[in-house]
């Protein structure tokens, strides 16, 4: 043998998946919802997405190369995913410098100081969003719709259904009155019960998620548990007092429920490894989110619920393991 051959241990072949290919799948899965929101909110939305993604990518590149002195990890596309998710959590009318601050918190506070991809404890996009929500409450809740490329069927009230509801209940009206006043029905939720890009169309998000399921990028247990818990809690409370507590349909299709359950709670890094751990994590998110919605002062609790359950992940990973072959 004159030629040199590779000698290495088995296995000698690979499934040809990479971090990049997985992230690319997530980006593809987010596309339907992104397209819908750009169509609905127009140029302003496009700018928010562009600034968010570019900021995340540039910040990741700059910090890894110049501060951490490591090979850049921009190529794995995880910063693009973070940028997209962050943008989908913001109102289209938000000033772009605030978008940059959100990206800075996501990448330079939540992600890289922990060691970069795979090492972060909290979901970077949600950390960025929550930081903006508590720092810039006015801009973050300005849901005045920007001019879109296509008209949205029902007029958007200018507030998300969830925050409009909180206001309505504060001012003493009951839920049935509120629903009639705003002309909400199932179709409107699937399409336009709108607020931020990611909250606009539950249908588009679901299409993307089905793509991820088919590509075996994610497993359905966490979203099922999040949405199932939310459905169960709202069914019980709505059943007890429909005047004060909103119903199942409303809770599953408004706010960040879909985006959070389908794309944020399923983030590999910040969710448990075992199926049972994932079930508990999902139930926890659904429970906390519904408690905030019903009893908290914030209209929406998905982000806080996911961040709180992120904290429990190391513990859940320690407690719950896979079932092993030949061991009881």
């Amino acid at each position: 043998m004159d030629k040199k051959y590779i000698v290495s241990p088995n296995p000698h072949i690979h499934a040809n998946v990479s971090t990049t290919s997985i992230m690319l799948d997530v980006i593809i899965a987010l596309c339907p919802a992104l397209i819908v929101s750009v169509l609905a909110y127009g140029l302003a939305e496009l700018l928010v997405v562009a600034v968010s993604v570019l900021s995340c990518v540039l910040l990741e590149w700059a910090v890894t190369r110049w501060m951490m002195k490591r090979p850049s990890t921009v190529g794995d596309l995880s910063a693009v995913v973070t940028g997209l998710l962050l943008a989908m959590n913001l109102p289209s009318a938000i000033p772009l410098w605030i978008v940059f601050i959100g990206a800075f918190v996501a990448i330079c506070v939540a992600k890289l100081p922990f060691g970069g991809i795979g090492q972060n404890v909290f979901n970077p996009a949600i950390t960025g969003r929550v930081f903006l929500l508590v720092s810039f409450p006015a801009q973050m809740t300005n849901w005045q719709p920007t001019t879109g490329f296509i008209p949205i069927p029902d007029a958007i009230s200018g507030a998300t259904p969830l925050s409009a509801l909180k206001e309505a209940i504060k001012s003493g009206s009951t839920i049935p009155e509120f629903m009639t006043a705003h002309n909400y029905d199932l179709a409107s939720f699937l399409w336009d019960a709108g607020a931020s890009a990611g909250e606009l169309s539950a249908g588009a998000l679901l299409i993307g998620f089905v793509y991820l399921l088919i590509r075996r990028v994610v497993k359905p247990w966490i979203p099922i548990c999040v949405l199932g818990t939310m459905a169960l809690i709202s069914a019980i409370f709505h059943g007890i007092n429909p005047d004060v507590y909103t119903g199942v349909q409303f809770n599953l299709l408004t706010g960040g429920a879909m985006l959070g359950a389908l794309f944020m709670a399923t983030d590999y890094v910040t969710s448990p490894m075992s199926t049972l751990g994932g079930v508990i994590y999902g139930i926890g998110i659904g429970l906390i989110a519904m408690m905030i919605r019903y009893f908290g002062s914030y209209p929406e609790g998905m982000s806080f619920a996911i961040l709180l359950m992120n904290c429990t992940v190391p513990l859940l990973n320690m407690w719950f393991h896979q079932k092993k072959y030949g061991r009881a």
Partner: protein
Amino acid sequence: MGKLTFSMGGVHPNDSKYSRECAIEELPLPQTVYVSMAQHLGAPAKPTVAVGDKVLVGQVIAEPGGFISAFVHSPVSGTVKAIAPRKDLAGNPVMHVEIAVEGDEWDPAIDRSKEIVTAIPDDKAAILDKIKACGVVGLGGATFPTHVKLSPPPGKVAECLILNGAECEPFLTSDYRIMLERPKEIVIGAAIMQKVLGCPCVIGIEENKPEAIASMRAAVAELGYPNMEVKVLKKRYPQGGEKQLIDAVMHRQVKSGGLPIDVGAVVQNVATSLAVYEAVQKNKPLITNVLTITGNKLPVNLQHNYLFRIGIPLSYIVEQAGGVPDQAAKLISGGPMMGRAISNLDASTVKGSSSVLYLSEDATRRKPETNCIRCGKCADACPMGLEPFLLNRLYKAGDLDALEANAAQDCIECGCCLFSCPAHIPLLDHIRQAKGQVMGVIRARAAAAKAAAEAAKAAAEAKK
């Protein structure tokens, strides 16, 4: 009827069985063969011939070096030229008997006719003796001496003989070809082993080999041995792993550290069954096997399934098949998932040799390792239900207690974790090291416990 499969993990590599249509060809004899003394699991065999001795094909040239060991026979006729260490596949020196080939004279006791002998001998002890005397070992990969496996320890009863025709490794087609070309002999071999064990037999074949399933079913029906059945297995790697196959066929799991016989299972490869047939019915020792020459960029007309005599150097076989192709970046003995990279092509073939596989650079070059993204794909892929990401971390931390608690020693080294890792982390490389260390700890503990028990016994006797 549903297709059987194991209950956890597994991956679906492309099966790449390009050489499936290549009929088995007999390889011409080289001028010299080098017969290894360590071609089975257990103690190496001890040579019983001396330099200068004339040997016939099938004559014993080495005897077992322990209980778990096997006879070795001369694959050729000629003169013993040397008994000396020679490098094996990985380049480690192993004792070999070098024989210069002269003609092709067979031991007259061997029945070389093509006639198929269907009558099964009655005497179980005689059958076992013959299997042992013919040096039959498991040809599924582990080369465990077959007579040992067919003699359950006292108190253990075999409830099912599982004949392994899964051939779940991509690329390999030797088992497929023998199931197609010699199904009756395989079935008779299985019936002989059934006779010894006194239990039913299930022949498991993966669904991607419908021709083999049909061929084996026809043979089973024609020969009409009782309690024998062909069952279809799902195409899923590692379906042919011993523990996975028992799970798939019997829905039982072997306890950690236990043996298949603990759950009443005996697993034998189809090639082993053929060797048993030849040993018992034809008196022919295990001196031949079938080997696949294949590769991901090799034209099909250069692919082969060869009937080879053990001891023929791989380089000779490769030469006969047209040499190493230019695109080959890695040469593998065995399948792409569990085979071993060949670092020494001059190594000689052994009883368990199953293939020479050429993989091109793009198919086999490992990519640089990146951060674990905790996707859990390794844990989903592990057929033993282990958590490779965790074992990898514990290995780096050197935490042997935690490694043992998380069952690093149960790893079967199938490669599913590394195969499916998107971050290209060398999971199996690390877990293999960890497994070795944990096994060392377990063995040391067992030895210490034994020593302590003996010391206590001695002390008690001294008191008397």
